[in-house]
């Protein structure tokens, strides 16, 4: 039996998710609770309704058809009723077999463009068995994950085995700070970073630059130290915080409370990395 997973998007023509032109699959569920998260629909592993208020004409048809008011069972009646499709059922249950079949359709094309498939999220390793089956079914394609690295080390090792390339976040080098801003301690992450370094597989590190949280020179230096000597590291990318990060919170019924000054200009000085011979660029 093929494993079932829950995905919340498949994005064609992804150009920032690894080498070449790629298709990126977003797996639902994340063990971290970063205060700057811009994909709140990826946090919960379960399917959920996503309602876009922008464009709503207030026709009320969604409420008219609802038979589970206040106790949503994701029947999807309101999705079908909305004349502008502003309600979305976020999270499709899909077997690895079906997903792989869909992705393999474009394998020749993506191979020709030096690309492949990227699993992102959420945190793709949260659905590790599903992810593993997908990766195994996609051996004819170049395979990458975008991971926060928070995963049991033995599971991570098995996943790493199936990958051609790794994109990993190092959000904060300091353990306490990491726990404060993401909800978890970074020791598993750092252990897995060591695994990636040892694997010899090409990898890229990303730092979401959050003003006043992790954009200090000290954090950059500590991160650079963690990475020094890794011959398989291609580069470090700084991803400046986007003020639009909060856009999707309301759609999933959450409130965005960033707890840092979103208007502060982030420090994007790449010198801490270039000094130790690591290529670093700002996205």
């Amino acid at each position: 039996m093929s494993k079932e997973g829950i995905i919340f998007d498949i994005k064609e023509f992804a150009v920032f998710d690894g080498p070449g032109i790629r298709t990126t699959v977003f797996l639902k569920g994340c063990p971290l609770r970063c205060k700057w998260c811009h994909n709140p629909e990826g946090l919960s592993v379960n399917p959920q309704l996503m309602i876009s208020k922008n464009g709503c004409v207030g026709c009320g048809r969604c409420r008219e058809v609802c038979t589970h008011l206040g106790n949503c069972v994701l029947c999807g009646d309101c999705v079908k009723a909305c004349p502008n499709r502003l309600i979305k059922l976020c999270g499709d249950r899909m077997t690895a077999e079906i997903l792989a079949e869909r992705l393999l359709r474009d394998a020749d094309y993506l191979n020709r463009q030096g690309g492949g498939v990227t699993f992102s999220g959420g945190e793709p390793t949260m659905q590790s068995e599903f992810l593993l089956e997908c990766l195994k079914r996609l051996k004819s394609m170049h395979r990458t994950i975008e991971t926060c690295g928070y995963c049991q080390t033995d599971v991570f090792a098995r996943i790493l085995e199936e990958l051609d390339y790794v994109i990993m976040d190092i959000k904060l080098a300091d353990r306490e700070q990491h726990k404060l801003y993401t909800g978890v301690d970074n020791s598993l992450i750092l252990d897995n970073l060591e695994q990636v370094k040892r694997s010899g597989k090409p990898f890229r590190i990303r730092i979401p630059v959050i003003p006043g949280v992790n954009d200090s020179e000290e954090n950059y230096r500590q991160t650079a130290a963690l990475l020094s000597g890794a011959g398989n590291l291609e580069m470090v990318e700084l991803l400046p915080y986007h003020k639009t990060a909060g856009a999707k919170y309301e759609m999933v019924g959450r409130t965005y409370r960033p707890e840092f000054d979103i208007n502060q200009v982030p420090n994007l000085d790449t010198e801490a990395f270039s000094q130790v011979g690591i290529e670093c660029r700002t996205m």
Partner: protein
Amino acid sequence: MTTYIEKLLDRFIVEKEQKQYREAPADKYREAVRYEKEALTDLQRTVRRLAYMLKHEKPVVYPDEKIVLLRTVTTVPEIFTEREFEGIKKEHYIHEQGKVCNINPAYDMLIAAGFDKKREEIKGVLQVLTDDAEDVESSEKREYLNALLEVLDLITEFADRYRKEAERVGNTEAAEVLSRIPAKGAENFREALQFLRLVHYCLWSSFNYHNTFGRFDQYMYSYYINDIENGILDKETALELIEEFFISCNKDSDLYTGMQQGDNGQSMVLGGLNIDGTESYNDLSDLCLQASLELKLIDPKINLRVNKNTPVEMYEKGTMLTKQGLGFPQYANDDVIIPALKRWGYEEQDAYNYVVAACWEFIIPGRGMDIPNVNGLSFAHAVISSMEKLPQCTAFEEFLEIVKAAVSEQAVELMESAKNVYMEPAPLMSLMMEGSIGRAQDVSKGNKYNNYGIHGTGLSTAVDSLAAIEKYVFKERAFTAEELLTMLDHDFAGKEEVQNMLRFEAPKMGNDDDAVDGIAVKLLDWFADSLEGVHNDRGGIFRAGTGSAMYYIWHARAEVPTADGRRRGEALACNYSPSLFTRLNGPISIIKSFSKPHLMRVANGGPLTIELHDTLFRNEDSIRKVAMFVKSFMDMGGHQMQINAVNRDKMKDAKAHPENYRNLIVRVWGWSGYFVELDEVYQDHIIERMELGM
């Protein structure tokens, strides 16, 4: 960019200083009334009109300009009164405004020879004609050739007035250039550019429009390289001249005829295969791209000719330009277009020399009096007009046969209507069309190629409607044909959920679904089949295409709701593109879908248009990937493509606050224009199109 070019931009684009010299608009029929009284022939009238225009022009020269001329006469007069024109319309098929337009003259025929030599050539032909007044044909020819001489004299006189003005303001260099041209052929790049500006200017003053520049990088190259080799120019000074020329294309463009402000057809084609298989893209082509990139102006609009060997670096340069948001370059695939043109009977050397007309149609410089946009067939209408027969069909294939007949019927009707075309004579244009002098025949009466192109609009709406009918009426039997007709009659009132399903869940073209895309293959084949082997009354053929022009708005206005869930009056997709409200898998699926039809058979012109979110153009790496994406469509057999870098929020804001977006440029159908100057219906369509942005 040099400070001189910055100054010109400031003068002509930002401050629009040239407008202060303009006369107030005049009654466009004032001259025609006189011509009618004098009972002038149409040929005499066109010459008189040019005389009127050029004699009323007040030369304006800035002391620092290198390429002079700007328009001060605002209104180009008509040559017929309204009543006269109504009479002509009764007798003839009038395409658009009844003028020679949307063709590409061979500018080099004048620029290289100069007017003195042209006069000799004309006189040479005149000499061998008898002056027997009884010989009607001969006297008509004499009359025509004398008209050509008169046109040359008028332009010479006009150029000389500009020369004097240049002298008066102390611009001795410009005066010196005008003391040689147009009498003599251009001897250097600057003279050639001034010559081109002069001729182009006079075409607009002759009421010819959609005057494309064609293969500028080819016919201008010898002047450019000669100056480089002789040390007269280096790349920087050449670039400055090109930029000044490009700016000159924007000085008077608001006075040019078109459907909408910006639709003036000043396009340019760069690169392309030579007949020996080598690539013609040269240093001058490169400088043109650079100029366009630096200036960020609407005109000229850039087309790039590509083929399977075109390196991705070339597409990267194009993508850098796309990033500016101007809506060009547009790419044309030589590997599809050249064989298509040959198949249609174009001689090999001409096929290799093709250019892009005002929007996207493929035409031949100096040899084609093609009317590549003579009319438009609506696939959506073919489906709509077949719907009443749907209840009688027991199988989907039966319904397809009815639609096939409707396509063919519409095609025949359009071809039948394009008979006995009349266009006003165009003597200046004819001076740059092969054989016009020798045969003493005006281009408006025909030239080497006299083919008519028919656009095909509403393809995705038709395909999606048919796919929905197949799935819901015949396969799943979710509703009957009668029920569908009732829902459509009532614009889905009370059946919003079904409409919703049709809009968002039904199979759509653009998702790389063979069953759906196969319908598109059929529709386009039927269109091509209907035109195949039919000749027009000028001896030319009919060419099928995938363009839409303004038909996507016009056709939609009259159209009723469709089985794809489209509401009454909702616009059809522009050109060769997915339907507007569909939510597709993404760009890869789109190009896979749209490369399936036999595009070589429907190569009149009309690009696959894809809107990409502007963040995809963020860095070098992603620009390279966008370039690879464009290349991949061409490698899969795509015929023509145009990418827009878009940001929907910006457009919405521009609509709400036009004062902040005076210079925002967008692609409309085959051309780019200032967003804030467009009619609201086009603004809304563009915003809607961007919702599809990937």
